[in-house]
């Protein structure tokens, strides 16, 4: 989780990730942020985020992103 927070804060230091719960729905994370984020998550956690994972519910909050990471890690 700490590692995830670090990735997010490096990506968008202007966003308060602990508070936000509609990162994608409210357009806080832009499409280009998502592309960069997916690349970093895949690398950092040795997972493979697939196109069907790219839905707002998986990226709207830190907890949702972390849940996705954990789910994909368990699949390995």
């Amino acid at each position: 989780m700490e590692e995830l927070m670090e990735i997010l804060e490096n990506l968008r230091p202007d966003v308060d990730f602990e508070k936000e719960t509609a990162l994608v729905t409210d357009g806080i994370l832009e499409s280009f942020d998502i592309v960069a984020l997916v690349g970093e998550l895949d690398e950092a956690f040795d997972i493979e985020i697939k196109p069907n994972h790219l839905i707002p519910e998986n990226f709207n909050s830190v907890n949702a992103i972390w849940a996705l990471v954990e789910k994909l890690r368990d699949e390995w």
Partner: protein
Amino acid sequence: MYSCVLDRFTHVPPERVLYKDEFSSLTWGAFQASSDAIGTYLAGLIGPVAPVAVMTGRHVWTPACFLGVVKAGCFYAPMDGDLPKARLDQMLGVVQAAVMLVDRAHLKTAKELDFHGEIVVMEDILQTPVDPELLFSRKSAMTATSPLYVIFTSGSSGIPKGVITSHESLICYIDAVIKVLHIDESDVLGSQSPLDYIAAIRDIYIPLFTGASTYIIPKNEFAIPGQLFETLNRERVSTICWSVAGVELPAKLGAFELGKPQYLKKLCFSGSVIHCKYLKIWQENLPDVMYVNQYGPTEATASCTYYIVDHPVSEDTVLPIGVPYENYRILLLNEDDTATPPGEIGEICVSGPILALGYYGNRAYTEKAFLQNPLNPYYRELIYKTGDLGRFDEKGLLEFHGRKDRQIKHMGHRIELSEIEETAGRIDGVQDCCALYDRDRELLYLFYTGTASSKEIVLYFRQNMPSYMAPRKTVRLDELPRLPNGKTDMQTLKQYFHS
């Protein structure tokens, strides 16, 4: 010959849909009625040929606001309300509008800006009784060279430049694109571009000229590849004119693993050089679509040349930028203003009725960029020097060979690297800096000396500049590497790209 875009509108039944977005749709009848009301209201407020700043959202009413301004005999300057206040204030400072037209959702933002004119809320004036005589007199006073809009681009001095364009230029360009893409009233366009941006002129005007319609795609759908293609299918989108960044995104995010835009017939892309590994994915999934590569700057009304991709591409294909659109003329010039010999690389220069009227309120910049054709001593013929380098291949197709200066294209936007440095230089704790672009990984780097933290720098950009201008990677150094002549050694800095 048309004297204004209003004369060029096609005639279709009023119940036909013109624009549609996530929440609502606007028929021709409703569009005409609302733009007439807005036009009447504004004409009662200000004289003709005046700038009107327009700050509205990503919805069907935005084009009605633009054309309402035009019906008042004025010209519009679109403002993206999501930009930081500092940037909007800079733009307002350039435009010096007496009136700003906003939707209710942007009223609060507008009130916080450094703007001393009158703020008019669109929703409040839609019921204005239309005054046909007033509108007719405003329309009659317009000529083909009357200004239509001011659209902003990055300026190397740190102040955005407002490119002002005439009715005639817009009509020439849109008509040329309609011909190449064979647009008719059965087409549905899917709009990706921000509506305040130059690329949106296609999505706004093509339907007005042809009877086609435009679906305005919600911005965040580009982050959700499955949803994007579902939307294109639900709306039966046949034609998309997107930035290269927008076209590459679904391919990058694997959208084709989830579906295909099955109604798509034409895909036109522009803004930067496409990575053909992504175009290949599109071609393999949609082999029957017509793919068109477009090239051109805002100063020559969006695009100058086009190339219809007539073969399957491979990862390393470099597409030519092709041949000029109708009403565009291209010439190549050497550094010393002589004609570039065939087969050699020269600066791409443009002439024709599609040249912008210049940079609003900046005669010095205008005269530097729009010049008498040095090859023509006989009569007045202006050219625009693009700063891009090009070469005609043996088939007469134009190739793109990069920039003369340090302008880059990033996420579909044009950025002067010196504007990034100018901005970073304003931050306390940044002494020396150099901005560079890693095109392969599409990362904007800022190398700097001083005490500022990476977070402080990025935050400053996020608060003062458009989001695409914020550096993605910041590298603090004890000193910047120098060449013997004292200039920053950019080649040495580029070694950081791979680490």
